[in-house]
């Protein structure tokens, strides 16, 4: 659905169903240079179960207009304002990559807002190589290709996967290409600058789930495991794929999410 939010046309995918505030809402937040299509195999899957789903396109991403948020804090504030605008009160947050940093910051600043957090390919810090940041500015198409290639495991390179006829590389590039061309650089800089993740992770009091990927080159497993060590009550699952595990291992991921949600409720 499209809403006018903070003066900009904003898209929120709801998995093909209406938002129901009486249900637990799963709030999926995408990573750098991505949009709601990162969660194609999660949004409708969970919206057709007992959950309400929102997958917003952050400003300047996907179908949303507006200027991208320049910091993780600004992203977290935008999401807080959005869930208040939508009158949501029973929220489980699911972040991918940069979305994990945003989730940490959101929970730190509004500790009573979230019932649970799922970190997908996350860490408490996501340092970004200056070469990639510069490339995102000077030759963003090349930067997209590089990220899509790095970001996928073997299934990307072999053009295998569970959606018949589908190419992870083709889809990945064209999802990124839907965004405002300045978006990727702004997102990468926001990740690179963010240094509040350790503190925010140590402040989490709610049970969390972290799903990491063995062959993740964007937020490496080693970094993800250090992050998990900071969390008090976190269940860890590891999948044998690359960074885009929502697309590469959707069935396994959805099973982990379902199991976590059942325990949470």
């Amino acid at each position: 659905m499209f809403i006018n939010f903070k003066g900009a046309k904003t898209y929120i995918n709801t998995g093909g169903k209406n938002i129901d505030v009486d249900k637990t809402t799963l709030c999926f937040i995408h990573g750098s240079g991505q949009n709601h299509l990162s969660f194609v195999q999660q949004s409708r899957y969970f919206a057709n179960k007992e959950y309400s789903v929102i997958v917003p396109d952050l400003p300047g991403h996907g179908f949303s207009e507006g200027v991208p948020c320049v910091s993780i804090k600004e992203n977290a504030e935008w999401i807080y304002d959005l869930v208040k605008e939508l009158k949501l009160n029973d929220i489980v947050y699911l972040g991918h990559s940069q979305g994990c940093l945003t989730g940490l910051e959101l929970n730190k600043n509004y500790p009573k807002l979230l019932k649970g957090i799922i970190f997908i390919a996350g860490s408490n810090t996501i340092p970004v190589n200056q070469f990639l940041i510069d490339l995102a500015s000077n030759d963003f198409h090349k930067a997209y290709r590089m990220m899509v290639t790095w970001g996928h495991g073997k299934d990307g390179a072999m053009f295998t996967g569970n959606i018949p006829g589908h190419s992870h590389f083709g889809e990945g590039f064209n999802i990124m290409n839907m965004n405002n061309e300045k978006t990727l650089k702004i997102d990468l800089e926001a990740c690179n600058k963010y240094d509040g993740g350790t503190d925010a992770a140590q402040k989490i009091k709610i049970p969390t789930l972290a799903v990491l990927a063995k062959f993740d080159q964007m937020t490496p497993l080693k970094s993800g495991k250090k992050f998990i060590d900071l969390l008090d009550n976190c269940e860890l699952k590891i999948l044998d794929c690359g960074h885009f595990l929502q697309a590469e291992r959707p069935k396994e991921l959805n099973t982990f999410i379902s199991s976590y949600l059942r325990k949470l409720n």
Partner: protein
Amino acid sequence: MSDNYKFDTLSLHAGHSPDKETGSRAVPIYQTTSYVFKDTEEAAALYNMEIGGHLYSRISNPTVAALEQRLAALEGGVSAIACSSGMAAMHLVVTALCSSGDHIVASSKMYGANINLLQHTMPRFGVTTEFVNPNDPDAIEKAIKPNTKMVFGEVIGNPGLDIMDVPTIAKICKKKGIPLVLDATFNTPFLMQPFNHGANIIIHSLTKWLGGHGIAIGGAIVNGGNFDWGDKEKFPTISGDHFALGGISFWEEFGPAALTMKIRAEGMYNFGPSLSPTNAFYLMQGIETLPLRMKKHMENTHKLLSFLQDHDLVEWVKHPDLETHPDHLVAKKILPKGSGSVIVFGIKGGRKAGQTFIESVQLASHLANVGDAKTLLIHPGSTTHSHLSAKAMKLSGLTEDMIRLSVGLEDIDDIKKDFEKGFRAVSKLMK
């Protein structure tokens, strides 16, 4: 980090990894109609396209999917759908994009079945087509109307071998917000990848060079994922609420893959032009050697062009790689590896000479196909177009003396010797 494999490697490997249970190196032929659901929840999720997978082979099949993924890889697309023939692919695209009252702009110089579908069949369902010269971008632009839903043409026209100026026409389509749909059968992704030149949707007859061995009929649609379907008034069945899957918008739910998902949910589901898994296997075997075959096809084509040009009994030779071809400069720009392995030429002596030549060669096969590993010939004047007068043939861009030659992979000396037999027979006839 994922490897970014090159074309030759993708031709062999894309779409399949040996499965963990059997270790089968070749793509298995999943000769099955249906797939056992784990539970009712999984069944519902598959029916509703909430998650990828197979539920019934009319809609998708693992062997066919491996072929589709290989094609998406070779073309640089987002996704592909394989189907029972090239014409089935064409029909799926037309019905996915157009509804009654809609309009198509198409090349006037195309394969007869493509023209028949648009000129005679689709108008019965309220979809009309304006045919324009594919070499005239201005005419294409002028023909686009508010209700035009696609511009369609063949990269290399069959049988006239006209070359579409794809980059120029793609710019026009982008400006007008219309997808450019191209039949890329004659070039294959080895000679040219249309998405790199701005095309949006590719149609293939896999029966020809991609399959390459004349043993299986098949077709495919490859989706570039590079078209913005967001105009709900123009593309209501892609970006608006659709009856399938409970009233979703394919564009909002699937983004770049919207067209493919729509064709799978509607076209494959309702029309059912599915490709058999065994034929998918045969076609993939062909694709494994596509780069090798295309190199040899082009090598033999260029040698035969010289042979025919130098022959006393050949009136004329037409191929886009010849400087005399009107589209030679465009071909040079967009088809640097060569403009395909079909040659058309005229034999001195008209219709009877053409017929005699065809009946006198022994190695080359006289049949209605192109793109086989073997050399193929047809004389339209005595077969497919024998009912037409010389004047009517000219209007179709054909001539009485014209022979269409699909150059095969035999030793070039043997092809030339075989042709000499045909020419000797023509020579006797002329005496």
